[in-house]
């Protein structure tokens, strides 16, 4: 036997062990969940529903599918626009709270706060805020305050504050220190040098990230409709339950259009900020 082989404790490398363990965990998880390959094949009724749903994608509704529409109901497309508008208003209000709170907490959690204790407390608040998903916050606030727009807005604002604050503090800490150093050398206090020396170079990235989070807030606001808030999710759920798939697709396309519009807007802004 080659003596070198004796030095090797395992016939596989460390990386091989890691990969094997991950694969083994996957198989164990599948057994634990009692998954079976047959579950993946839809039953006959399911295939029919899926076919109906996806074929409706090519002909989204421009009017109500229901035969009976109550008097005074706005035209279908107007209702779609109204739902999109409310979805955006919820998201925008939540984001305006989250950005302000996120900036304050993000600064306190960054090295600019100048105190390890303040930093630690700010980080704990941030971790608590973002470790609970907005849908769970919504459940809590629904139980406490019922269906009021404020519960939806605050449910979105809390975790978004946490995430924004975390990213803002990291961007501030990673911003180059040379300009801030020059300001300190010119007699500026540590706090002010941090703010005026670092914030300007971090702002483009902070703005780009806020835009991305705004997009996420629109999606969350839409999903909150499933709980009964009158955002677009509310109508998607209702149409889906009534098997009005063409209406569902109209709502989905409207949502996609909003996200694309955001993408276009933020790209234009990034271009203006670009270094």
């Amino acid at each position, binding site marked *: 036997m080659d003596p070198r082989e004796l030095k090797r404790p395992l016939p596989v490398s460390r990386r091989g062990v890691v990969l094997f363990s991950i694969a083994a965990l996957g198989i164990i998880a599948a057994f634990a969940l009692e998954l079976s390959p047959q579950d993946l094949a839809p039953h006959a009724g399911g295939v029919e529903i899926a076919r109906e749903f996806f074929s409706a994608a090519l002909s989204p509704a421009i009017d109500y599918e229901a035969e009976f529409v109550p008097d005074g109901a706005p035209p279908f497309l107007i209702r779609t626009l109204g739902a999109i508008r409310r979805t955006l208003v919820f998201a925008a209000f939540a984001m305006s709270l989250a950005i302000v709170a996120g900036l304050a907490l993000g600064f306190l959690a960054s090295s600019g706060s100048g105190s390890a204790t303040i930093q630690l407390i700010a980080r704990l608040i941030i971790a608590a805020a973002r470790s609970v998903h907005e849908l769970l916050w919504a459940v809590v606030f629904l139980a406490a305050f019922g269906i009021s727009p404020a519960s939806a807005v605050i449910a979105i604002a809390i975790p978004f504050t946490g995430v924004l604050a975390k990213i803002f503090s990291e961007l501030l800490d990673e911003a180059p220190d*040379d*300009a801030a*150093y*020059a*300001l*300190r*050398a*010119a*007699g*500026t*206090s540590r706090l*002010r*040098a941090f703010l*005026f*020396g670092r914030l*300007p*170079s971090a*702002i*483009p990235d902070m703005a780009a990230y806020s835009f991305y989070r705004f997009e996420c807030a629109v999606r969350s606001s839409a999903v909150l409709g499933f709980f009964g808030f009158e955002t677009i999710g509310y109508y998607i759920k209702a149409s889906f339950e009534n098997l009005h798939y063409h209406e569902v697709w109209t709502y989905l396309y409207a949502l996609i259009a909003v996200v694309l519009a955001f993408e276009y807007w933020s790209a234009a802004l990034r271009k203006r*900020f670009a*270094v």
Partner: protein
Amino acid sequence: MNPAPDEGTYQLNNVSVTFAQTPVLSDVSFEIEAGEVLAIVGPSGAGKTTLLRLLNGMVGPSQGSVCHDRANLQSLSTSQLRRVRARIGFVHQSHNLIPNLRVVQNVVAGKLGQRGFLKSARSMIRPHSGDQAGVHALLERVGIPEKLFERTDKLSGGQTQRVALARALFQEPKVLLADEPVAAVDPARARDLIRLMVDLAREDNLTLVACMHDLSLAREFFPRMIGLRAGRVAFDTQTDEISEEVFDELYSLAAR
């Protein structure tokens, strides 16, 4: 506001600086008179930058004392030290400007240490017309008046260093410190920049202390030179009294 005739003096007495048990400067003593123009020369690692940072109190001596205008910098409180620094302009090796702001904002930033918080914030966002006029006049002196509203990262290396010089002058300093100000500047422009800096310091009667890597530039523009070697003062003399042999030795040291 130019300094009074006797402002901008330094006395260094037996100064040593040690970082993590490594001596950077040892037993350095010299005086600088108001309005004096002098270069600090020596090979890299000799302690030039540390010496400069002693002069604005960003580094404190481990032993000895640094007196500026008869005040021992170490005996000052933080806020007193900030007030002293506010009147000391510093041109850094790499400009240390905020790249995505306009030139006018970067120059105005020189006065942040002398203004209240709200006034500072306002002047960083949209400098008022008085500031703009002041910055424009300074940019004229450093030769780039047309760059007032240019984004700073659009400028060349030489122009950026002129903005840094304008920012230092906007402080209305008594002293101008420069740490290898032309290290990142195209050699053809370096000479103009050094000449400009020395001329401006003389016009305003400022004390100018510059670390210079380029010996021929130091020799041409600075009447006094302090040579550092391994943290000690190797010589401190008027430039025209340095013999050719000493210069040859210095050049060979610098080339190493």
